[in-house]
């Protein structure tokens, strides 16, 4: 018996849905086995990481707060990925977006009220978008691979952050800690009363549907898909590849910048050296686990947020490091990429060959 990959006539919709779910389940199973082997209670760890945050209702708001930036960033990245544009620098755009928002905050001091919040969020969107035009320009002008340039710009962004919070924007009353002054309460994002759930969560719930309409129904969404599937056909259809690269990178940068501004104005209210949280990188996993589909990103963002919160819970319950969640996230990405092939191909089992014919010409 042997196995053979056979191309499907049409991509399987069932597999499109099944493979991400299977990836999560496989991750849990492998997690249990591996953790047991290294002497940690695997079952307990997996339950804590994947289920406890869902079962404990007091953790839901944590999950929502973590999911919001992941979903927003992943939405932008999935647009780029559809056009075969690989923005790996969302973390940097996220940081720059937050810094631009902080710059507005610093500029206005404690005056301005809610108007300043709007301005900060806008500044975040613009800042993240502008940061992403650098790899876009390098790619279209000099054919520089955007994977490298956007990733490298992340480290530039981190340096900018540490310069600003350690220097010009350092809180004068902050006991010399490298951090900006906390936002005035009038300048923070509104929260659902009695909770920490801010307006950004609502935005993260609405945006996937906006993106879905744009990608599935608009001419721009069509353009992105054509450029990603077949650049020559796109040119034949009258779509410009360069402007598509620019547009998708700017959109993904702007979304990351928006997420950064929301995190700053909605959760942290100040920026310190610990601000970069890896959301920009984790969102890459979200985009793939969500099958580059906006609604998929919403679901996948929630799943990944669960593992973040669960990772923190497992830290105290089974005494494993917080970064364990990262291992699970990486495993999910691994399985989703590996099972991707099942969407376009099917596995066929070929029974063992019949008894050899009279003369078999084999090499």
């Amino acid at each position, binding site marked *: 018996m042997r196995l053979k990959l056979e191309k499907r*006539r*049409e*991509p399987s919709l069932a597999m499109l849905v099944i493979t991400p779910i299977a990836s999560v389940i496989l991750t849990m199973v492998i997690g249990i086995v591996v953790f047991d082997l290294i002497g940690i209670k695997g079952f307990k760890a997996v339950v804590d990481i994947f289920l406890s945050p869902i079962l404990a209702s007091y953790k839901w708001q944590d999950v929502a707060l973590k999911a919001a930036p992941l979903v927003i960033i992943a939405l932008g990245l999935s647009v780029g990925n559809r056009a075969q544009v690989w923005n790996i620098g969302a973390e940097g755009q996220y940081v720059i977006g937050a810094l631009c928002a902080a710059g507005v905050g610093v500029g206005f001091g404690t005056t301005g009220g809610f108007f300043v919040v709007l301005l900060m969020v806008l500044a975040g969107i613009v800042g993240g978008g502008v940061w992403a035009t650098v790899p876009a320009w390098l790619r279209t002008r000099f054919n520089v691979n955007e994977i490298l340039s956007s990733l490298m710009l992340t480290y530039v962004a981190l340096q900018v952050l540490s310069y600003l919070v350690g220097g010009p924007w350092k809180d004068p009353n902050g006991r010399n800690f490298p951090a900006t002054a906390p936002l005035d309460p009038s300048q923070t994002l509104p929260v659902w009363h009695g909770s920490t759930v801010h307006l950004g969560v609502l935005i993260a719930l609405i945006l996937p549907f906006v993106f879905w*309409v744009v990608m599935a*129904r*608009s*001419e*721009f969404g*069509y353009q992105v*898909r*054509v450029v990603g*599937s*077949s650049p*020559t*056909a796109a*040119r*034949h*259809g*009258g*779509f*410009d590849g360069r402007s598509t690269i620019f547009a998708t990178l700017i959109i993904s940068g702007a979304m990351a910048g928006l997420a950064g501004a929301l995190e700053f104005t909605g959760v942290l209210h100040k920026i310190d050296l610990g601000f970069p949280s890896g959301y920009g990188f984790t969102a890459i996993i979200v985009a793939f686990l969500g099958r580059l589909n906006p609604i998929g990103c919403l679901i996948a963002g929630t799943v990944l947020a669960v593992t973040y919160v669960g990772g923190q819970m497992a830290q105290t319950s089974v005494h494993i490091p917080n970064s364990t969640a990262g291992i699970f996230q990486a495993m999910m990405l691994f399985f989703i990429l590996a099972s991707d092939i099942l969407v376009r191909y099917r596995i066929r089992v070929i029974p063992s060959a019949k008894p050899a*014919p*009279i*003369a*078999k*010409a*084999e*090499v």
Partner: protein
Amino acid sequence: MPDPAPAAVARLELTGITKRFPGVLANDHVGFSVRPGEIHALLGENGAGKSTLVKMIYGIMQPDEGEIRWNGRRLTVANPKAARKLGIGMVFQHFSLFEAMTVLENIALGMDAKIPARDLESRILAVMGQYGLKLEPHRIVSTLSVGERQRIEIVRALLLNPQLLIMDEPTSVLTPQEVDQLFVVLRKLAAEGCSILYISHKLHEIKALCDTATILRGGKLVDTCDPKVETSRSMAEKMIGGSLKDIQRGAGRGFGPEKLRVTRLSMAADGPFGTALKDISFTVRASEIFGIAGVAGNGQNALLLALSGEEPNHDPGSVTVNAVEVGQMQARDRRAQGVASVPEERNGHAAVPVFSLADNAILTARDRLGMVRAGLIDPRAARTYAGEVIEAFSVKATGPGAMAESLSGGNLQKYIMGREILQKPQVLVVSQPTWGVDAGAAASIHQALVDLAATGSAIVVISQDLDELLSLCDTLAVINGGRLSRPMKVSEAKIDEIGLLMGGIHGETAAAEIEKVAHAAQA
């Protein structure tokens, strides 16, 4: 032609070969035999099961039933490597070449035995010299034309000294002179005892070349006949299982006002091995079909891109449509002016392979047919239009939702031609409209072009198939090295002059050359 004694064992004998795919019976108990040194034609429409059959001979697939005998021995051809070891070579219609590698590297990859590059190169040069196949071994494949790529495949097959050579549509990209040269090669091979299984739609070629023809229709063997006795028409009718329609032209056709004018159009070469366009001028009037002949790689692609607007020109006046200067316009704006185009490559240029036919309708018809409103696409309009095209051009597809890549080449070509023609363009530029398309489909594409011209459109047909141009066009010019010859009326055109122009001898020189040849012949 050597005619081996009837007692001789067949080189290849197929009996009762059957192959099923989910929902399709691709081959239904097909059997025939090929003698040593015989040139055997395999005829049939797209989907008749020719490809499946040769794939089983070449070991890519295994038959579900039936047996293959090779030199009298019953065997299974496990894979193409085994086939090559037996001495079966194949030249595919769709080439399997690595674009980023050189000719030499591609051939080396296809060789089962490792041969040092230096030896291989000399062997390649020897084969090329022996059979007159021109190729530069160190060029990168991505810069080569279709015709040149095919030559790589032919050389690759010949290097194996095959006993049976399978050729799938080999002449579709060659000049008449090159076809003759190829036939010399094939006859020479046959005389040396190599059998040839020759798949083609060009019936007069089969008549000229082949000893036997096996005709398939719908997976079944229809007839095995002697092409020298049959007429092209009788074979075509056996192939399609009905009577063949001639191109119907309206009586008393005259040309209308000038629609397309190209004036001193020049384009820089695209890449180091691309062809630059030099000083191209011609005009096409309403109802006129203007043909551009030429060997692959002489600037045809560049010309199509320059006319469609995929490569705009710096000179606005270089191309005018209905006296509007469109030279600097991009493809989309030119479409708004009524220019439609069909490039040579269907999958990946004219259509997106992984998109449905409906989504592919949006690619070029969205503006002219109002499929986009306020930035949003109307999927129903796209589906309806795709359905109309499928219906009007008898495209064999499961419906507007079928993936473009799931269609056979001929059916996708019908769909793409239909997509452009039903938009009623003012000017239609098509490249290789019937490449790899069977006789039935080709006839319907030709008829559609003639009908479109009759409604007053100007049509430019770029083709390497001279017969097609001669039967279809009113006016003809030849492109060579990026230059276009003086246009001539098809009714007054001489085949040898066109052939020489295709080979690179221009205008009056060509006439002089012909006379010189004639004198030499008399002398």
